[in-house]
């Protein structure tokens, strides 16, 4: 029994952080905005880690899946707004559509791009993000560059009070739930055959093939899982918090870069790493913007360089080495 439970120990620190964040945000006045941002970055890191961390492939077009997820939610709300009896069910439909659209996109992208390796894969994926944005703008899909604005739709369906609560509070709680789900899936993968296959192919793809691992299959599994979570984050954090969507905002490559930084900072391929990375990145970004507005990137860059130089395997890599033979080792992976 104990042995069975020990498998889940690593989730304890992750969930503790999320629960603490939630209570700090809820009870300390004025903190919710910061907490929401931290939750967003933790969720982003946790989701991206499933692909970047576990396979070692860098997807520079990752934000495209968040963008598509945002569109999924936006489309569900704008198209189904006339069905009044749907009520809160419209949000469920939105998530379902976000999930469907990010899955389809990741299948299409994965089937082509995952045939490439290393830098070639990274370059191909940059194209996905930009290409999609220009396609939506140029072909005037989903209202093109004018975007979708659905504040009034949400207000009509849910009523103004519920809609306000959704946008200012519940959307962030949903991000928290998504982050927690991503953590559970990450641990499940790590502890199953999928995790071994992914680790093997990350360390040496040719060796993985020699052992009879279907590398394409596992790369695609990780890619789709990770992309689905990105879609959900987009739907919750972008579409529901700010009820409009414009192509240049949701296909902004900056978010991909932030996701990469968070994963590498915290420790790629670890469970707790994205949380640590998300917290450090989010808090630094927030306070640097408050105290040295305009200079935050200039100051942040050397901080990242220092951390990466001191801990090449991320914060978690350092912690893992330090607590290797102690009782804490069960909690830190």
């Amino acid at each position, binding site marked *: 029994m104990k042995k069975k439970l020990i498998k889940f120990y690593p989730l304890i620190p992750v969930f503790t952080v999320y629960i603490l964040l939630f209570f700090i945000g809820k009870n300390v006045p004025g903190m919710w905005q910061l907490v929401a941002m931290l939750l967003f970055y933790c969720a982003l890191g946790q989701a991206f880690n499933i692909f970047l961390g576990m396979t070692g492939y860098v997807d520079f077009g990752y934000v495209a899946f968040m963008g598509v997820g945002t569109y999924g939610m936006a489309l569900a709300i704008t198209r189904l707004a006339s069905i009044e009896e749907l009520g809160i069910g419209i949000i469920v439909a939105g998530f379902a559509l976000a999930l469907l659209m990010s899955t389809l996109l990741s299948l299409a992208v994965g089937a082509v791009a995952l045939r490439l390796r290393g830098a070639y894969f990274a370059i191909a994926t940059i194209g996905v993000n930009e290409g999609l944005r220009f396609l939506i703008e140029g072909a005037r899909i989903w209202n093109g560059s004018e975007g979708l604005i659905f504040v009034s739709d949400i207000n009509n369906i849910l009523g103004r009070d519920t809609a306000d609560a959704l946008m200012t509070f519940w959307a962030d709680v949903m991000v928290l739930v998504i982050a927690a789900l991503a953590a559970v899936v990450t641990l499940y993968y790590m502890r199953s*055959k999928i995790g*071994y*296959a992914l680790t*093997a192919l990350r*360390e*040496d793809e*040719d*060796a993985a*093939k*020699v*052992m*009879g*691992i*279907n*590398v*394409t299959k596992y790369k695609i599994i990780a890619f789709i899982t990770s992309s689905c979570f990105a879609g959900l984050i987009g739907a919750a954090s972008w579409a529901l918090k700010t009820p409009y969507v414009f192509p240049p905002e949701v296909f902004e490559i900056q978010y991909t870069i932030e996701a990469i930084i968070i994963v590498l900072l915290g420790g790629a391929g670890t469970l707790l790493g994205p949380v640590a990375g998300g917290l450090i990145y989010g808090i630094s970004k927030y306070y640097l913007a408050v105290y040295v507005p305009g200079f935050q990137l200039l100051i942040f860059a050397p901080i990242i360089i220092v951390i990466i130089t001191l801990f090449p395997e991320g914060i978690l890599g350092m912690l893992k080495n330090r607590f290797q033979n102690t009782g804490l080792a069960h909690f830190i992976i």
Partner: protein
Amino acid sequence: MYKVLTVKDLESGYGSMQVLWKPSLQVKEGTITSLLGPNGVGKSTLLVTVFGSIEPWNGRIYFGDQDVTNLPSHKKVEMGLALAPEGKHLFPKMSVYENLSMGAYRKKALAHKEESLKLVYTLFPRLKERKNQMAGSMSGGEQQMLTIGRALMTKPRLIMLDEPSQGLAPKLVGEVFETIKKMKEEIGLTILLVEQNASASLDAADYVYIMHEGLIKAEGKPEEIKGSPEIREAYLGM
């Protein structure tokens, strides 16, 4: 005798550069078949094409009676084809035991893991001594043994060895070839051996193919190859 592997008029290469120009060969069950030739003639390309790491452009590959030309690598491993690749490709930060365990990744191989492990440890007692050592910290010869050992963990019928003597001290080369012979004689494995070391592999092999510029230039029993001054001089430099 039963043919484990048949390669017919195989063509492949990288990008637009063709490397294999229709070589054909056969590997008979329970034998060591050696593919000899200098650097850059396509020996390794032939192995990775057979294994499925790169796609064949033309020609056919049969495993037993089955056409496996376009089968992906993991299916071939399942059928009993193993490759010990050139340049080792080990997991340096994992222990010897863990590397070997990874070899038994497929379900079929996992069922025979203990048995295969025993076999590998008998063939390479050194690996047993070092089972908890990190693979990356071992000597070149030991890493080569581990590469072969890991391939054996997939429980193959045919194992393809890509330059197992590469970069080894002369004394170790002898040891590696002894083990290869043992694999055939004591376990009854079928082996396709790619080598530059002509004299050692001529001694070990039952049948030899000489490869040059992407095709097979000569073939025969080792005695025939040794007995032909033209072949030796033109392709083997000995």
